[in-house]
């Protein structure tokens, strides 16, 4: 937080002086830079814009009208009504489930991976390297290969079908351990920690009182990626929990299967039209984006709080 402010403040002054004498080369560079950013912004935004407009149209308008035309608020309301009518608003149940699963998993992930990453980065012990390699390899294993073993494990523990069967695997997040590891090994000065040790603080206190406050950015980062990854995970909850316990992604797939375009053999029982699906999609994405907006400050305020590193 403070770091980025410092950055903007510091760079403000030279910019003022430089803009008085902009060389032609600099201008070309700037235009080039802005156009690259602009092109990529379009690349990222155009599809989203289309998606946001989609629920305001009827299925027919969606097919025949200009892609970026705006349909109408009545249509939007009608589509909303149709989505809510689907199995008596089960969409809220799905969202609630997803919130429960990802929320609990988030807490467990943070409690486990932050200390683990810290230990890997700070503590010298015999199997450190081996453990790092193992973590990395686990990350490389294709998920398909892990589904059966995880399923059998949880089935043996009689957990299949319960929220725990989703939450526990969700909480296993080597990516987070790794991020924390890199953060602590690059951004936090060991001198700072050593100083604390010399002051007589025990390892635990060093971690809790010195390292943790410095770790806010990486906690935000790990937390955010865990949240998004789990929110969007389809396959694991799909095999673990049935029907009304499904989170939103499995629910979306169920909606999709009721669109005749994708499942023509059930077209006789049309229940969901494409604009309604688009609406559900937006609804499913909204929580993630809101969280992103609120946490962006922490996410990018620089993984720099470590301060004294030179």
């Amino acid at each position, binding site marked *: 937080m403070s770091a980025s402010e410092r950055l903007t403040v510091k760079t403000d002054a030279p910019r003022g002086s430089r803009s008085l004498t902009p060389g032609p080369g600099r201008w070309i560079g700037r235009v080039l830079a802005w156009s690259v950013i602009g092109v990529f912004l379009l690349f990222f935004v155009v599809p989203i814009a289309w998606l946001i407009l989609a629920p305001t149209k009827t299925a*027919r308008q969606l097919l025949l009208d200009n892609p970026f035309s705006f349909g109408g608020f009545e249509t939007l309301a009608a589509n909303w009504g149709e989505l809510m009518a*689907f*199995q008596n608003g089960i969409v809220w149940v799905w969202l609630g489930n997803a919130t429960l699963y990802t929320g609990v998993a988030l807490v467990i992930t943070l409690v486990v991976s932050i*200390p683990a990453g810290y230990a890997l980065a700070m503590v010298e012990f015999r199997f450190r390297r081996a453990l790092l390699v193992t973590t990395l390899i686990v990350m490389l294993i294709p998920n398909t290969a892990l589904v059966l*073993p995880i399923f059998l494990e949880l089935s043996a523990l009689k957990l299949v079908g319960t929220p725990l069967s989703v939450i526990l695997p969700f909480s296993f997040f080597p990516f987070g351990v790794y991020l924390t590891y890199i953060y602590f090994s690059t951004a936090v000065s060991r001198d700072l920690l050593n100083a604390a040790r010399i002051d007589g603080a025990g390892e635990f206190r060093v971690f809790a009182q010195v390292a943790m406050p410095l770790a806010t950015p990486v906690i935000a980062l790990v937390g955010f990626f865990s949240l998004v990854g789990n929110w969007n995970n389809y396959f694991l909850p799909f*095999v673990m929990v*049935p029907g009304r316990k499904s989170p939103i992604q499995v629910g979306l797939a169920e909606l999709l299967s009721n669109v005749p375009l994708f*499942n*023509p*053999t059930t077209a006789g029982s049309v229940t969901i039209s494409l604009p309604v699906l688009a609406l559900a999609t937006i609804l499913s994405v909204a929580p993630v984006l809101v969280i992103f907006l609120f946490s962006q400050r922490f996410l990018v305020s620089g993984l720099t709080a470590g301060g004294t590193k030179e």
Partner: protein
Amino acid sequence: MAGQHRRKAARILATATAALTVAALAGCAGGSGEVNSDYGFATADQEDGSTITVWVDAAREPVAKAFEEANPDVPISIETYDGNAGGSGSFQTKVALFDQSGEGWPDVVFSTQTNDASWAAKETNGVQAFAAPLNKGYFSDDFLAGFTDGANDPMTVDGSVYGLRNDLAPVVLWYNQKLLDEFGYEIPTTWEEYEAMGEKLAAEHPGYILGSIGDSFVGTYVYYWGAQAPIFALDGNTFSSDFDDPHSVAMTELLDGMAANGTLVQDSVFSAPFVENYSDKIVAMPGPAWYAGALFQNPDSVNAEPGTFGAADPLYWEGEDEVTGNVGGGVWYASSHSKNLDAVETFLEFATSSEESAELNSGLPAYDEAASTWLDAQAESAFFAGDFKAAVQKAAGSVWGGWGFPSFSPETAYAAVVVPALAEGKTIADVVPEWQEQILNEAQVQGYTVE
């Protein structure tokens, strides 16, 4: 760090337990299952009054709810899932996992696909087949005889019926009465007349069409199946795909000819260009009965005026059997692992043959009585020209039996080979060898003997 270690230890322990459990289960599932002569398969220990779990898709949920209301004494837990929608394979994926863990199976499953018996009726990795055989003492013969002829054929393996058909989707010939009158054409009754009509239409009224070949379910189920082309045949465990059969050759020629003169288009019937360009240009089009709601009556699709379209008897080859194809139709399965087979039976009879089920069915019910009720209700709306009920009923009873139901879909190969080839401007005849190879390859990896 300590936490990490403890977690690891817990995981290792859990895996070990899991491995042991699997070993133990594999041991008992393989050997001790004794066939219960009342049912014709090895039943689980029955627990009267235990809750049955029923998996349905969103469209079938109302029937399950209706059952719950009508039978408050039968404990039932309704779970909705994607209905095993095309390509998702949910049903098989989940059962495969339950087979591995040895527990957790649902009691009743509704699937929107017709070919699940190909795997559900088989023992896999030593675990008893998921689907219970229904005609070996479980359901009464009277009840089973109430289904439309051939309705349960796709789920019949070696004389055992493993599933009950929910709805039928026979192919009929849809036609636009107004356009036929305007052009002075007759409704074609044979493939030969249909082909001739194509030439005439292309010459006299270019731009008007007689169907689409851009959908893989149309290419395969509507045209080749309806033409009695044995390109997808299964006999026991032997799969064959004969493109040299006169029926196959004739259909390939018909399609290529009509694609060339423009009376068959390549756009999917669900696509924007089709709706935009051809909604009012369809003179006649063979297609499944569910086109009624999905295309003609659908305000987002063709959205026809009442009285414009009608359904006629399906097309056949002149002088040959009057048969047709079929596109889909859902199936109910009972689990052979169920602990409350009585409740399952009550449920399935309700879901397929009750009056409520006829009312709630979105497709043509497979149970004769229910079908009749359903068709009367449709005919009352008087949306369609001609004798809708008679045409659909005739089609429902005359689906060609030579088409196979292996564990893979013919649509995949059509979509992967034929659709792109057509887009490149090739003819179907050009890619027949490639298409056939693709089908046979798929059959082979699924473990069929290929002829």
